[in-house]
């Protein structure tokens, strides 16, 4: 009976992680777009983004721990850290490991942003655009429920939401009103060669 419980928990926590992570990504895009209204201040976007990311980690931890201790999968703790080291669904699980590690790097650098510096933080944060899709593919590949209607629909909705958000971001361009004049001035005062 415990085995069933572990198994259900792994799958449920995985699904919840997917939804939470989707929300986190969308909030990140909204933050870059400087989304705000009279009733929705800027700090709400960034605050939610941060807090939901931390909650995602909790559910991810639950997902990973229950998967590893489940006797059915024969996963060792190593498989949670070293990609493609499990016998059980090697490839799809490996993707999950990768996604997890990318997220860990993103979260750690974000928590230590002051020490890491803005430039490094930003570069690592871009890994989100790798971590999220890898996580989605992992879910579709490993999950027992992957092709069950509810999970499939859920994944589809998440993909559509993120797809729309990212497309909008790409089209909208920079929200920094100084981006263009700064670049223009820079190109005027850049001097590569010296006398």
């Amino acid at each position, binding site marked *: 009976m415990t085995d069933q419980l572990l198994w259900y928990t792994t799958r449920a926590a995985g699904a919840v992680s997917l939804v939470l992570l989707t929300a986190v990504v969308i909030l990140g895009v909204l933050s870059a777009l400087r989304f705000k209204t009279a009733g929705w201040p800027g700090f709400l976007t960034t605050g939610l983004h941060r807090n939901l990311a931390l909650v995602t980690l909790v559910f991810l931890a639950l997902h990973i721990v229950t998967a590893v201790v489940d006797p059915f999968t024969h996963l060792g703790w190593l498989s949670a850290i070293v990609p493609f080291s499990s016998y059980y669904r090697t490839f799809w699980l490996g993707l999950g490991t990768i996604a997890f590690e990318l997220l860990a790097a993103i979260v750690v650098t974000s928590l230590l942003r002051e020490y890491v510096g803005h430039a490094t933080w930003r570069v690592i944060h871009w890994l989100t655009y790798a971590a999220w899709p890898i996580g989605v593919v992992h879910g579709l590949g490993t999950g027992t429920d992957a092709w069950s209607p509810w999970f499939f629909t859920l994944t589809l909705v998440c993909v559509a939401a993120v797809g729309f958000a990212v497309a909008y971001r790409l089209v909208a361009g920079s929200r920094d009103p*100084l981006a263009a004049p*700064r670049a223009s*001035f820079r190109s005027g*005062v850049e*001097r590569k060669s010296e006398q």
Partner: protein
Amino acid sequence: MTRLRLLAGPDLSLGPERLHAHVERLGPTPVLGHSLIDMLEASGLTGRGGASFPVARKWRSVARHRGGPVVVVNGAEGEPQSLKDRVLMSTRPHLVLDGALLAARTLKASQVIVYVGEDHREARAAMAGALAERPDPELRRARLVAAPARYVAGESSAAVNLLDNSIASPMSKPPDPHEAGVGDAPTLVQNVESLAHVSLIARYGAEWFKSAGRRGGAGTVLITVAGAVPSPGVVEIEAGTTVREVLDMAGGVDPASRAVLIGGYFGTWVDFAAAQDLALDPAALRERGLGLGCGVVGVISSRGCGVCETARIMRYLAGESSAQCGPCFFGLRALADACGRIADKGSNADDLARLHRWARDVRGRGACRHPDGAAMFLQSALQTFAPEFSTHPAHWRANAGGRDAA
């Protein structure tokens, strides 16, 4: 008549003074240790790049920080009206290089860089030629670097940024260049005229320097006279010389002239009559809430329009923002637009109120002093040209300003 010092020697039209003539006239570069800084302190020499910051204090701050210092000889002269640095470099390059050498030796600098405006060909050629003549190792290794022709390129941190990252945009402080500049080394960025004074003080002493000067001023100053004067150009005066005396040197001026701009585009407008007895000395001007700046004295004629001239200069300064800080880029543009509207379409209370409000808002909120300089310039215009700003008529663009406006 003022005894010339920096501009003493062969006629300026003869071009750069060669090394042998320079040494024959003034002797070799003196060898002094750290006592030079004490001498500079005793002389009271202040910087001639615009901020009038005491030279000795700057050298001490560089000396205080760890690491092999870098000396940047700042001849960028981004101020459009100013000619003095170019004239100095084109005719007395060795005075400047002596000063640079003295700075390098006193501060034990590992590098000397000469920074000259990319469009100032004569000055660049003169400095390049002078460098080639020097046997001193510090100067043989010196680099001559072209400063982009933008107003902010001469700012200290912009010079450092260009040298390190090839982009002449000002940088955030802290750290200031004297703490961590070129390659993170403590960097002395010193104006060419300041260095020229150093080379003479090192030879003749602080008391000699102070022996020139009127009304409490010390030493001599290079002034560029511009605008509605018969003979605009560079003159060397004793510090403390009055505006009237300087304008006489430039050929005298119409007594009905409207105003004088002292210190260049980051300077202050003063009513013509009130300006006559102003002593051109950094300390005396500061006491009156004014500044010597880069030493430009510009006259706007009685036919010129203070509002239109101010609008023109604000438009220029707004365009010279490096667009890194919102308050500077947007604030100066808004100020220039409001000035322009008053100049073109006539006075209105709203724009006048905006000018006062934004000029206050913009000050102190940039990474460098560009917004401050522009805002203070505008505030002096609002004060000096108060009647014109409130009663300016609308007029066609083509007639805007006088032909001989400052």
